[in-house]
């Protein structure tokens, strides 16, 4: 066994040992193992003709002995599966390994199907089938559809375009999918052309037209507000000069462009700081899940008081 595998094995054994000890401690303290999920039964009475609808909502472990609260096997397996998935992805930090690849494969499959299912139920059923087959939809999938709604034949167009788009999967006739694609691209270009010019060009210039000398209510100069405005106006100008490659960056233009790149460096520095902040927050959230919901070593939401 080489050194790396030995370290792996030791880590696995250590981790497993810690898990067992933790589970044992939790069991001896509370009579239940960490990661266990309890649910509250909710019975909705829907009238004399239909049976009551029973659903289950997650509840805090402290209430496990209350009436209507029971142990949920599926959700408990879920918490352990989620923890395993988290650790499997983290294992990539050690190096590429089959566990990570497995997790990655599951992720790709689940997320593609997830988007497809959501798109189907929310748009295709509601807005396409709901407009083309309102009677059928009212009887089956969309009982809340207005009773006055009738077929809107214009929706036959996106249906045809949609089928043409799926033609891409066929072995031949790939050009058929270009029609809906052209519609998609044309629409995107149409809405972006105007919106970007209005919001990101005209309005940005408008936002930059600022008073360079700001006066307070009593007529004196607000020095720092004025400095701020001057910096913004000058900053936008020099940064644009840096991006302007039609003129050679020499002499005055070169000097301005140099200040421009310094200003852009401040911008990128700020972006870096904010990016770090974001990534750390995500890591903290994952670790909190492991420590709180799975291992039960912290209880920030006081979900297990008295256990």
């Amino acid at each position, binding site marked *: 066994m080489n050194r790396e595998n030995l370290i792996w094995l030791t880590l696995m054994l250590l981790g497993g040992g810690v898990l067992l000890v933790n589970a044992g401690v939790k069991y001896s303290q509370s009579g239940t193992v960490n990661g266990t999920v309890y649910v509250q039964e909710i019975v909705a009475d829907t009238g004399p003709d239909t049976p009551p609808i029973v659903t289950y909502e997650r509840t805090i472990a402290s209430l496990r002995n209350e009436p209507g609260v029971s142990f949920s096997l599926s959700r408990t397996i879920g918490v352990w599966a989620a923890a395993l998935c988290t650790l499997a992805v983290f294992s990539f*930090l*050690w190096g590429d390994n089959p566990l990570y690849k497995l997790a990655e494969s599951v992720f790709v499959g689940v997320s593609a199907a*997830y*988007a497809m299912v*959501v*798109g189907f139920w*929310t*748009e295709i059923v*509601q*807005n396409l089938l*709901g*407009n083309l087959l309102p009677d059928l939809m009212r009887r089956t*999938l*969309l*009982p*809340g*559809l*207005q009773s006055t*709604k009738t077929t809107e034949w214009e929706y036959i167009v996106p249906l045809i375009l949609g089928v043409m788009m799926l033609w891409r999967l066929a072995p031949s006739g790939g050009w058929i999918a270009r029609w809906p694609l052209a519609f998609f691209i044309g*629409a995107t270009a149409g*809405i972006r052309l105007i*919106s*970007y010019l*209005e*919001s*990101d060009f005209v*309005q*940005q210039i*408008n*936002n930059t037209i600022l008073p360079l000398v700001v006066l307070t209510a009593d007529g004196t100069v607000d020095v720092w507000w004025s400095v701020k405005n001057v910096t913004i106006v000058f900053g936008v100008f020099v940064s644009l000069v840096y991006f302007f490659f039609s003129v050679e960056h020499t002499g005055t233009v070169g000097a301005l462009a140099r200040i421009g790149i310094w200003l852009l460096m401040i*911008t990128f520095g*700020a*972006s870096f700081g*904010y*990016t*770090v*902040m*974001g*990534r*750390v*927050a*995500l*890591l*903290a*959230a*994952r*670790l*909190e899940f492991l*420590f709180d919901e799975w291992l039960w*070593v*912290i209880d*920030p*939401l*006081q979900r297990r008081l008295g256990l």
Partner: protein
Amino acid sequence: MFEFFRDLDRRWVFLAMLLAVAVPILAGARFPEEPSQMVRSVFHAIDNLPEGSRVLMALDYDPASEGELHPMAAAFTRQCALKNHKMYFMTLWPPGPVMIQKQINMLQREFPDYEYGIDYVNMGFRPGYEGPIKLIVTDLKRAISADVHGTSLDQIPLTRDLKNIQQMDMIINVSAGYPGAKEWVLYAATPYGIPTVAGTTGVQSPLLMPYIPNQLTGMLGAIKAAAEYEQMLIDEYPQLKDNRQAQEALRRMGPQLVAHVFLIVLILIGNTIFFIERRRSR
């Protein structure tokens, strides 16, 4: 010492980062928060709306950024409920419906008098990236004909007389990227002048600054702003003081501080190695 750091396996850096985040979580480290000017302006923009105002809650994020954005979404939802605003939830991200459901679960738990269809409605997800925004600014029901339960918007009291989102008093957008805050600014806030505030990820925050304050009233940038917002909410509404769910971002600022300091130390060590090596090579 020099050789140790120069030849350090990056896995040790990973382990140190893990500890920098994990230890403060385990220790429950927390720090006081002082709301910045930007956070105050977002808070007052929502708080100064008359009671019962119409607010579009556009929650455009997924689990990947939930750690950063859920505290903001929850704080916005709580504040709107405390002000009795009417909330219209929707999302442009496929995993977004679950994010909305979490806010609705919170409303049902903490504000039991808040009634579905009267005080808030869940319009769910719509595909098409910026497409739905472009449509709902002029015709809401053509893009969203029914709520998540399949009930036609014409039959829900809150949406019965709503033609488009120009009738909203404010758009609150919690955004993780595309489509998100930028698209709401481009297609709703700028052309129609609908007051908009955003809560965004750290990556996105610097990109949205040019829109403030004319096109975007204000913005909460990353977890730090969320923590300040939670603190401000607690200060203004003391009934939230003992609500631990309302302090998620405040809790996260412990690991945040240690990790930031750790990163600075890493950069300093890295540069020290760099300069020593450069001097030796001369």
